[in-house]
């Protein structure tokens, strides 16, 4: 049984709704990072789409050990439930001394669900800036685009290049815009990725002790630097819709954006009849 202390907090969930990702720096200890590098180099055992996560990477497996650690199990359980389905995994490498980056894209295909998959990205070694790092566009996960149709966007205000220590984990909403930034070192860059599908309704799966913390509203109303003025307001509405979905509170709103346009009274005054 997973200790509640390992589950995400409501404030972390609000950050996930706002940014489309959560970052956990140096979460995996170094001895496991080094063992993982050897395992990733040797090739990972695959599994069919839809395999229960609990059946993935049977022992002995370093990646199995990492993913089933209480901290990472807590992240997974909070976002997609305790035993999601394995979608696919990949070991992404970027060659040394590259001259090109990957184009910006969203993974898979256009996906309009409120239910969401997560992708975990794991960086088993240090990633300095000259090694590139994955580029993320915070708050891009609600945008309805299909994969690499956004490839012409080279730079966005507020974009993040993942510069991190070994053992860092990213938990991403399936819709987040990202790409592999070029690696200008003489070493290959590694990143392990796994996609997981929920099998339960994503309703209050995390530690909800702080569900009514006033800071949550502030987190959900933060603008991203790249948002256009008008469309940025729609993104605040998107977050409120997702927060309603996650908490079951159909009355939730941030700054009255949803309630204003939902207000369509039908009560007819007697004087009008």
């Amino acid at each position: 049984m997973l200790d509640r202390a390992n589950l995400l907090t409501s404030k972390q969930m609000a950050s996930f709704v706002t940014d489309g990702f959560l970052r956990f720096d140096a979460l995996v200890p170094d001895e496991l990072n080094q063992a993982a590098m050897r395992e990733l180099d040797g090739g990972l055992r695959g599994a069919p789409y839809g395999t229960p996560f609990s059946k993935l990477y049977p022992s002995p497996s370093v990646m199995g050990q990492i993913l089933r650690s209480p901290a990472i199990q807590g992240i997974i359980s909070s976002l997609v439930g305790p035993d999601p389905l394995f979608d696919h995994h990949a070991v992404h490498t970027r060659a040394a001394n590259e001259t090109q980056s990957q184009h910006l894209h969203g993974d898979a295909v256009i996906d309009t669900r409120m239910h969401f998959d997560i992708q975990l990205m794991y960086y088993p070694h240090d990633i300095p800036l000259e090694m590139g790092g994955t580029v993320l566009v915070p708050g891009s996960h609600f945008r309805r685009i299909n994969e690499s149709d956004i490839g012409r966007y080279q730079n966005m205000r507020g974009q993040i290049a993942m510069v991190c220590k070994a053992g860092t984990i990213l938990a991403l909403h399936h819709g987040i815009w990202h790409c592999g930034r070029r690696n200008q070192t003489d070493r290959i860059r590694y990143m392990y990725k796994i996609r997981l599908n929920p099998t339960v309704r994503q309703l209050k799966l995390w530690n909800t002790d702080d569900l009514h913390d006033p800071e949550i509203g502030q987190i959900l109303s933060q603008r991203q630097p790249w948002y256009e003025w008008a469309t940025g307001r729609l993104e605040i509405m998107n977050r409120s819709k997702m927060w309603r979905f996650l908490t079951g509170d159909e009355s939730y709103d941030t700054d009255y954006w949803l309630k204003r346009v939902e207000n369509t009274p039908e009560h007819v005054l007697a004087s009008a009849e």
Partner: protein
Amino acid sequence: MSKLRQQVLVLYLADSALDSGVVGWSLYDGTGGTAPITGDDNTPPYPTGLDALKDGWRVFQFPQLIPPYPGLEYSTSFLKHEFIFERLGEINA
């Protein structure tokens, strides 16, 4: 043969006015003098679209203002305010 080549600058602005702030940008350099690529620059080349004009870029495409499709008024997708500029640069060869 001319030594002039087209350079194309795409600025994504915060609203439909050319003098609004830059929120995203891309550059394609036909002279081969630079090779900008994805995620390489955290600072916009100009604060606004108008500043690009002042620096000699010529705007050749304004984004059309298209009403949202019925039913999609609240959904978000591509960046809406995409202004495309050009200037001619000389190749070194």
